[in-house]
């Protein structure tokens, strides 16, 4: 969004000759100059297709909002998108379910994804900075090994990670989900790109000349410069942990330690024999996507991903 404005605004104003040379259709809305399309006729077809896509993506979200207002009976009897008035009852039921187990799942998810992503950012930032700003023997080997980790499918890791953690008695604890989530080869890869792009060598050198230690140079000078990129690393890792179903599914047995995903999946499983639980599952699904959707809308500008160039423009 923001990248357009500086390029298109002066072009529209200062070079009238160019725009009169190109045969442009009549300009219906000259006020909309910030858009790249200066005076382009809107196309109903392309707008229609795009809105259709938006509708497809919003449909299940809209449904869960409506469905969470229905009572158990109405869920299967009234029209899909006909709202009802039982939202508060459903939230109350969910609250009461096993002494508020749902909120425990919510808290667990926040711990796994929030703490895990924060630790991951610290580890990735340090590693990325080292790989971008130092020259040392073995650098290429280290980087290539870490990079290969991006392509390692989670499947080969699941069983041995479980067995290794079982040997030191860490399965079925918070650590069993947190610790494997901290290492993120992709995060290190991104952090290296940010460090290379946003921390100038001269500034690092100047800090050293002024007598700052290596650690201080990193913490006080490099990190603030890398910060926008590190927010993106945080978001990526947050979503990756929050999305990872298999790891907690394998590691945890105690449902007090479950994240939302494993908890709701288990609840749905029980619902097959107790349909009364379905309204709990639906209300739970609604409540669990609200915080994340909010986070997304708030931090939208950090999601400009350029995978091919390897960087993220924030």
């Amino acid at each position, binding site marked *: 969004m923001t990248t357009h404005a500086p*390029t298109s605004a002066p072009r529209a104003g200062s070079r009238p000759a160019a725009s009169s040379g190109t045969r442009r259709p009549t300009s219906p809305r000259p006020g909309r100059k910030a858009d790249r399309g200066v005076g382009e006729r809107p*196309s109903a077809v392309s*707008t229609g*297709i*795009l*809105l259709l*896509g*938006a*509708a497809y*993506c919003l449909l*299940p*979200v809209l*449904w*869960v909002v409506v*469905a969470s207002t229905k009572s158990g009976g109405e*869920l*299967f009897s009234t029209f*899909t998108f006909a709202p009802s008035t039982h939202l508060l009852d459903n939230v109350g039921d969910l609250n009461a379910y096993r002494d508020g187990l749902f909120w425990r799942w919510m808290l667990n998810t926040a711990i796994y994804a929030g703490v895990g992503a924060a630790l991951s950012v610290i580890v*990735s930032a*340090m*590693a990325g*900075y*080292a790989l971008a700003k*130092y020259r*040392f023997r073995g650098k290429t080997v*280290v980087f290539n*090994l*870490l990079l290969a980790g991006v*392509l*390692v*499918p989670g*499947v*080969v*890791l699941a*069983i*041995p*990670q479980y*067995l*290794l953690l079982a040997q030191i008695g860490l399965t079925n604890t918070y650590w069993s989900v947190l610790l*494997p989530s901290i*290492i993120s*080869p992709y995060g290190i890869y991104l952090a290296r790109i940010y460090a290379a792009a946003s921390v100038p060598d001269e500034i690092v*050198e100047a800090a050293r000349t002024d007598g700052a230690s290596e*650690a201080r140079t*990193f913490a006080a000078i490099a990190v603030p410069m890398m910060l926008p990129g590190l927010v993106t690393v945080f978001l990526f890792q947050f979503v990756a942990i*929050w999305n990872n*179903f*298999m790891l907690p*599914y394998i590691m945890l047995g105690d449902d007090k330690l479950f994240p*939302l*995903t*494993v908890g*709701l999946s288990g609840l749905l499983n029980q619902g097959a024999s107790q349909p009364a639980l379905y309204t709990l599952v639906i209300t739970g*699904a609604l409540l669990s996507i609200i915080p994340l959707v909010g986070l*997304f809308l708030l931090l939208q500008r950090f999601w*400009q*991903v*350029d*995978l*091919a160039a390897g960087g993220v423009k924030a």
Partner: protein
Amino acid sequence: MTTTTSPPRTGTTRPARRTRRRLAPWAFLSPAIALFVVFLALPILYSVYMSFRTEQVSGLGLGADSRTEVWNGFSNYAQSLADPEFLASVGRVGIYGLLVVPTMLGLALLFALLLDSRRTRARGFSRISIFLPYAVPAVISSLLWGFLYLPGVSPFYYVFDQLGWDVPSLFSSDLVMFAVANIAVWGGTGFNMVVIYTALKAIPSELYEAAELDGCTQKGIALRIKIPIVVPSIIMTSVFSMIATLQVFAEPTTLKPLSNTISSTWTPLMKVYRDAFVRGDLYSAAATSVIIALATFVLSFGFLRLVQSRAFGQEK
């Protein structure tokens, strides 16, 4: 690096500083390397090791000493590759991947081009709406769609019912594949769209102006300029999508309670899970997971090599 002007008084501290500077990158890297070794490298090696082992039961199999671990050569692999359940799950994932990856990336490219077109309206709203599913974890999106597939809940069944038409259940054996594929397409299109859209925005607008001067239409610009330039992005998203597709686990596991057609070995990963944690046969599960990992590597690198000359060759 080569600062020549050094006052004499710092002469004593210089070697110390230099050592510190030489050690600094390793200090910064040490947490990452330690975690990498413990949670990535060791588990991979352990998996490979286990895939060549098996448990031998002596006597009646009672008592603690009656079970011993022994080398098993390639037997676990031979057994996995001959297992009809495994082969069926691989076939399913193959079809699933052929459905999901082209549909998802095709839609992502289409939406990205429309977002980049100056003739489209409601772009901000659409971009957020299409990206929104990325915020919904696979388990929860499967749960939402799972309910929308249920005849008692689904709006489609309601409409068809009013019209007096008979519709087959989406959970029947033929259609369940589409039901699962739809969830993956729904969840992944937005993210890939943002990736491609970001690449599109990086194209300098002078290129379009030149094309317009030459009388190129918007469709022509999309086909001849925009798509070729974003091909590298499409390739990368394809590789990541293929890796994710082969590992599909959360969606069918979540839908399982709603559908009888999804077996506990519906995808290769579900089979690994069942073998390891339901049957307790860690050794053959390890072999199966190594096979899946190798297949993933071969597929993603093979695909990259296949398209590399075409995509990256022209850039350099």
